[in-house]
Structures are given as structure tokens and as C-alpha cells.
């Protein structure tokens, strides 16, 4: 593309035509402050923090202003600094400034900018304030509009990326607030609990409903056997909370930290990801060979499952009946493991660490209590785990690398890649192809289904059949893909769908990165690389070769799809609607 030269703070800067001033300034290593801007998602120039002076004094919002030849830009004049300060003061004038105890203190984008601009929390413009009314109606999150700056990142990601739109600006003027239709609580809407709104919120207005205190109490109770499982993606992102670069694998330190937090056993959801593959591959082969409903669609992502129930209720039969790895783990922990250890299921407290907020909703679903007690008792996000580690005074960065416990901590490379979009498909194909053909795969990498594109397609020749597969991540992409299936435009056999764009590595429970990092860094790819690297280096890369899984079937479950497996590892779905819940 053609380049255009402009002047930024007196220096020539050359940037591709079509760039905004904000993007051109980045090429000159100048980061103009923003609060509302999210590339391709929320480009509305609402917060006015990115205002710059152009051509000798006119003000322009740099996030949306396209460069033109000869443009002269100043990003840091005394009057601009004063302007930005005043803008922040006005935002603070209607902001609950209880920063000390705020969940976002330390990584709040508003707080950071105030610090940089020298704006303190004084009462500059005292007057009316939006009252702090917490919406706690949803299972997974809390909204506190007294900390909302109306940047609309959350509503943009909900509507444009996820295709849902259950939150938006209501009312007008000073009374404007982000909420749901007819002021319903979020829990009464068709919100799917994906938590992408939390991931993009610059302040403490949105946060997960925390179960840290309940988990800490269980650990402190000597009568309880408290076990923990960690999802594949957690190890790929937890380090960000402790100043490691994005894409650092902290699996060993995480296991060490969990042990020091006092959990009785440190297990891994990767184990039950392998188990999921055993059941799901079996179910897929059954459906193909016996005329079952196709395409079969994965059911690991509870945000996707709820979306399907609300928005495609006529397709719930396409969902695999397999529970998610989190729930399979819980069901096995309170049956097989409980029997092995001689512990009553009701004395086990099963905790999960997830990159996900929808998992908090999933643990309370019907038909997720195979042993008469909840499969999983508490589901914490990656962020909550980081908070627990900090509260406990554990020096995470100095910890040694430790191992998970056996047997529910043993996994294959196939289980690890569940966290990236396409990973479940790839893991399932490794097992399904070998099962169908009876031959060993020469090449284990199904690279067509890797990468962060929203929709991926591939066809694999397996035995005497062409298996057509598709992978979608992000619910807007899922909607587009399913509409193609419904219209007959596409005929797949097997579809993987993950609720969050890029899959679990970019889940709503992962560490929050500020807007400028999200806009300039491919976070999903960096985190996914951790998982693919782990897979590539794993001695065992196929779920059906995981020795712990083999033993589980040999000594307890029998065959995949057995009656016992069905009772413990499969679930049911409900049909919901969009507007009448």
C-alpha cells in the first residue's frame, strides 16, 4: 500500500495510506492515550482522550482521523495536556473513586492514565453521581455502573463480536447507563456468560463473581479434601499477572503455587480433555456409522452451548452429549478417584481454574451432578487464581517448577491444545482417524484447523470417507457458520465451536490486557503458541494413548460410550429463546 508522510511533533513519519493518526503515531513510538478505542470493534471516538492538535491547533480524535499528505500533528502540547487532564477530571467526577479496594486497582486503565497525567482523586466537580447499584443477577459476573465510564467497549464486543447484544446504553444525557432491556438483570436475559465484556472493560465496572472466599474456607476446613484442576489455557496466561511476557508457559510454577495455597491434590483439566476426546470421538464415529444427527458440534465451551440453546434451539441435537472437560473431571473425581482414595464424594470439594466465566454458570446447570453432588463445586478464573496467589503472599516468580499429581494430572499433547481454536478438532481427529482406520497416523499435525481465523474449513480423507470439518471461534462467527449449515450451503460432519474469539486462550476469565496492548499485539496467537509448543514436545500426543486414561477405561469405565461413561460423562441440553427467558 502507498505510504503517506505526515509530521508528528515536528518529525516526519511515513505510514500506510488509510492509517489513523493514532496508528501513524505508533510508528513513531508515540502512544496517544485512549480509553474507548478497540480496533475494528469500538471505533467511536467517545472518550476524547486521544485528542490531538492538527494543522496548527484544531482538535481531532486521533483514533478515527485518517492521515493525509502534509498533515501536521502535535500530540503533547501544554494545552493538550491540560485538555486531557480536564477530560479525566470530568470522568472522575462521576466515578466511584473507591480505588483502594477495587478489583482493578493496579491494572485499571483509567487509574493508569490519571497517574500518567497527574490527576488525583480530588473532588474537582462534585455533584450528582451515578449510584452504585450492583447487578448480581447473573451466575458469573457483577456490573457496577458507578465505575462505568460509558466507553461502550463491552456493548460493542457483545453485539459486534459475539452477535448477542444483551447490553447497551439506555436512557440519555447524564442518566445514560449500560444495562439490559427494560432494566432486566443480566441473568434474566439471553447473556451466554462468555465474559468478553469483562475482558475489555478498562475499569472495575465489570468483574467476575468471585468464589475465592468459599475456596479458601474449604481449604481451611480439615474435614474437606480439596482438589483443583486447571484448564490448558490458564498456564499460557497466568504469568501475565506476574509480569511475565504474554505467551510465557508457567505450568510448573502454577502447580507449585496451587500446592502452596493448600490444595490437597493438584490435577489437570488436560487429563479430562483427553477423556472428552475418547467419548467425543466415539460419539462421532457412532453418529457417522449409525445415521445419527450430523454435523456433530463440540460441547466443551459453555458459552457456546448456552448460545446454541438461546439462538439455535433447533440445533441442540447437533451438540455432542459429552460434558465439558471441566465437568467430566468433576464427575470422575467424585466417583473413580473418590473410590480409589476411599473418600466420600460429599467430602470432596472440587475446584476448577478456568480461563472462562461461563464455567461459573456451567457448574450450576442441570444434569451436571453425576454422583448426587455437584461435579464441580467452585470455578475460579485465571484472574481469581492470581489474586489468591498474591493474597497468600506466594512469591510466584521465585517458585520452582513442580508437577501435577497422578492420576488425574497425566495428559497427552492432544489434551493441551484444547485451549486454542481448532485444538479440540485436531485432538479428536487424531483419535477418530486412528480408530476408524486402525492404522497409526503418520503426521499428527492437522494444520488446516490451526490459526486464529474466525472460521476454518478442511476435508480429510479417512478410510473410504471424506470427513468435512469446520472450526469457528467467537459467537458472531459461529452464527455465520450455522446459518450456512441451516441453509444447506455447507454440509459438514463435525464442527468445533468455541465461544470466545481465538478459543479459551482468549477467554473472558483471562488476565486483562489494556486497550493499547489488545490493539497492537496478537495475544491469542502468543498464548496459543504455548499450547502448541507443549503438544509438540509431549512424549504422548494422542488422547487414546494417555496411560491414565487407558487405566480409567480398563479398570472402571469399560469402553467409551459405555453405560457407566454415559451416566458420568454425558449431559443434556435445554431449548431456550432469545427474548423470553
Amino acid at each position, binding site marked *: 500500500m502507498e505510504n503517506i508522510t505526515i509530521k508528528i511533533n515536528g518529525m516526519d513519519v511515513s505510514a500506510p495510506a488509510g492509517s489513523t493518526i493514532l496508528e501513524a503515531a505508533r510508528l513513531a513510538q508515540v502512544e496517544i492515550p485512549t480509553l474507548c478505542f478497540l480496533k475494528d470493534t469500538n471505533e467511536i471516538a467517545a472518550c476524547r482522550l486521544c485528542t490531538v492538535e492538527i494543522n496548527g491547533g484544531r482538535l481531532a480524535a486521533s483514533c478515527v482521523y485518517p492521515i493525509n499528505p502534509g498533515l501536521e500533528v502535535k500530540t503533547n502540547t501544554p494545552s493538550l495536556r491540560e485538555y486531557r487532564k480536564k477530560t479525566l477530571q470530568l470522568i472522575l467526577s462521576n466515578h466511584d473513586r473507591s480505588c483502594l479496594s477495587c478489583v482493578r486497582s493496579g491494572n485499571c486503565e483509567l487509574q493508569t492514565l490519571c497517574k500518567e497525567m497527574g490527576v488525583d482523586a480530588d473532588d474537582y466537580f462534585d455533584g450528582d453521581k451515578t449510584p452504585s447499584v450492583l447487578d448480581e443477577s447473573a451466575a458469573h459476573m457483577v456490573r457496577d455502573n458507578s465505575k462505568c465510564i460509558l466507553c461502550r467497549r463491552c456493548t460493542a464486543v457483545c453485539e459486534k463480536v459475539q452477535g448477542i447484544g444483551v447490553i*447497551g446504553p439506555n*436512557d*440519555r444525557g447524564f442518566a445514560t447507563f449500560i444495562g439490559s*432491556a427494560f*432494566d*432486566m438483570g443480566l441473568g*434474566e436475559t439471553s447473556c451466554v456468560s462468555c465474559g468478553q465484556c469483562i475482558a475489555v472493560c478498562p475499569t472495575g465496572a465489570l468483574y467476575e463473581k468471585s468464589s475465592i472466599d468459599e475456596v479458601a474456607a474449604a481449604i481451611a476446613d480439615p474435614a474437606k479434601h480439596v482438589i483443583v484442576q486447571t484448564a490448558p489455557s490458564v498456564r499460557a496466561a497466568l504469568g501475565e499477572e506476574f509480569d511475565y511476557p504474554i505467551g510465557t508457559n508457567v505450568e510448573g510454577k502454577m502447580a507449585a503455587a496451587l500446592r502452596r495455597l493448600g490444595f490437597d491434590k493438584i490435577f489437570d483439566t488436560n487429563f479430562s480433555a483427553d477423556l472428552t476426546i475418547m467419548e467425543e470421538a466415539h460419539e462421532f464415529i457412532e453418529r457417522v456409522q449409525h445415521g445419527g444427527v450430523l454435523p456433530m458440534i463440540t460441547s466443551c465451551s459453555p458459552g457456546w452451548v448456552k448460545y446454541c440453546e438461546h439462538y439455535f434451539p433447533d440445533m441442540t441435537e447437533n451438540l455432542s452429549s459429552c460434558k465439558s472437560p471441566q465437568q467430566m473431571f468433576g464427575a470422575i473425581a467424585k466417583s473413580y478417584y473418590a473410590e480409589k482414595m476411599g473418600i466420600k464424594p460429599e467430602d470432596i470439594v472440587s475446584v476448577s481454574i478456568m480461563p472462562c466465566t461461563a464455567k461459573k454458570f456451567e457448574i450450576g446447570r442441570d444434569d451436571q451432578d453425576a454422583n448426587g453432588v455437584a461435579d464441580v463445586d467452585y470455578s475460579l478464573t485465571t484472574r481469581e487464581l492470581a489474586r489468591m496467589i498474591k493474597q497468600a503472599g506466594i512469591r510466584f516468580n521465585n517458585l520452582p517448577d513442580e508437577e501435577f499429581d497422578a492420576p488425574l494430572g497425566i495428559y497427552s499433547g492432544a489434551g493441551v491444545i484444547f485451549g486454542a481454536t481448532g485444538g479440540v478438532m485436531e485432538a479428536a481427529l487424531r483419535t477418530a482417524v486412528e480408530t476408524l482406520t486402525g492404522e497409526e497416523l503418520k503426521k499428527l499435525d492437522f494444520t488446516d484447523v490451526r490459526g486464529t481465523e474466525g472460521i476454518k474449513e478442511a476435508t480429510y480423507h479417512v478410510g473410504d470417507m471424506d470427513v468435512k470439518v469446520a472450526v469457528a471461534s467467537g459467537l458472531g462467527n459461529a452464527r455465520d457458520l450455522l446459518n450456512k449449515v441451516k441453509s444447506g450451503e455447507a454440509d459438514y460432519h463435525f464442527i468445533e465451536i468455541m465461544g470466545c474469539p481465538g478459543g479459551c486462550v482468549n477467554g473472558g476469565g483471562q488476565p486483562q490486557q489494556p486497550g493499547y496492548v489488545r490493539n497492537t499485539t496478537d495475544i491469542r496467537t502468543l498464548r496459543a503458541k504455548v499450547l502448541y509448543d507443549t503438544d509438540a514436545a509431549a512424549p504422548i500426543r494422542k488422547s487414546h494413548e494417555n496411560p491414565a486414561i487407558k487405566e480409567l477405561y480398563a479398570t472402571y469405565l469399560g469402553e467409551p460410550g459405555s453405560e457407566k461413561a454415559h451416566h458420568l460423562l454425558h449431559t443434556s441440553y435445554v431449548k431456550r429463546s432469545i*427474548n423470553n427467558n
Partner: protein
Amino acid sequence: MTCKKQGVQFSGTKEQEIALKEMISQLKDTKGSLMPIMQKAQDIYGYLPIEVQTIISDETGIPLEKIYGVATFYAQFALQPKGKYQVSVCLGTACYVKGSGDIFHKIEDILGITNGECTPDGKFSLDSCRCVGACGLAPVMMVNGEVYGRLTVDDVPGILAKYE
């Protein structure tokens, strides 16, 4: 489904629903048709309760929240029906300095509703308005067009009682 901004029982008819759906099917494929659809829906029902907005959402695929956001942004859209007796209080400058704010609050207290709302029995609705051209009589309120002037807060219960 709970709904905070809903006081009066919805009493839409089958004919209204048919007219609404017919109108939506004609307009929905036109870009930017949400506002006209909402305006015409209000012509049919007189206001836009959750039942009507839900039909608009189901028929157009536009999220209910987006419709509600538009409905609460523009003053032209009403979420509540008008009552049998429409009470309005002038909050224009002359009436306001003569204490019409207190009159307004007194009516709110007696009827248990606030600006733009209707009592659950459908009898009274309350709106604030700007100058009605009777500044000489300030402060002024009206009930179905009947003007009451030179009011004090103590006059309010008696006036409302006439319509009970």
C-alpha cells in the same frame, strides 16, 4: 421476566398484533428502519411496552436491548400508556420559580408514580411539560386539558380527588 418500567397490564388485541407484524414485514428489510417501525408501532398501541418491543425484536432480529436503548433515548417514545386522566405540570421558568416543582412532587407522592408513568389501574398518568401559555396563573397544572392555576401544594389532593 421481571420488568421495572412496567406498571399497567398489557391489553393489546389480536388485530393490533396482526397490524404490527404486517407493518414490520414491510419495513424490516430497509436499512435504518428501526425508528420508523417503532414510531408506527407506537401509533398502533399508543406506547411501546415490553410485549410490543419483544415482537419487534423477534420479527426483525434486532436485539431487544437495542430497541429499548432507542426507546429510552428519544422523548417521543413512551414506555407507559397514558392514563384515563392525563396530569401534566408545567415546569417552565415562570411556573418553576413559583414552586411548580413542589406541586409535581406532591402529585408523585399521592399517585405513587413519577414522570412519564401511569398508575397500575390505568387511571392517572403524569408528565411534566413546558410553558402552556398561562404564566399569569403560575404555577399551573392540567388534567385532560383542564387548567388549574395559582396553585399551592395543599390544593393538589382536592384536584386529584375530583377525578377519583
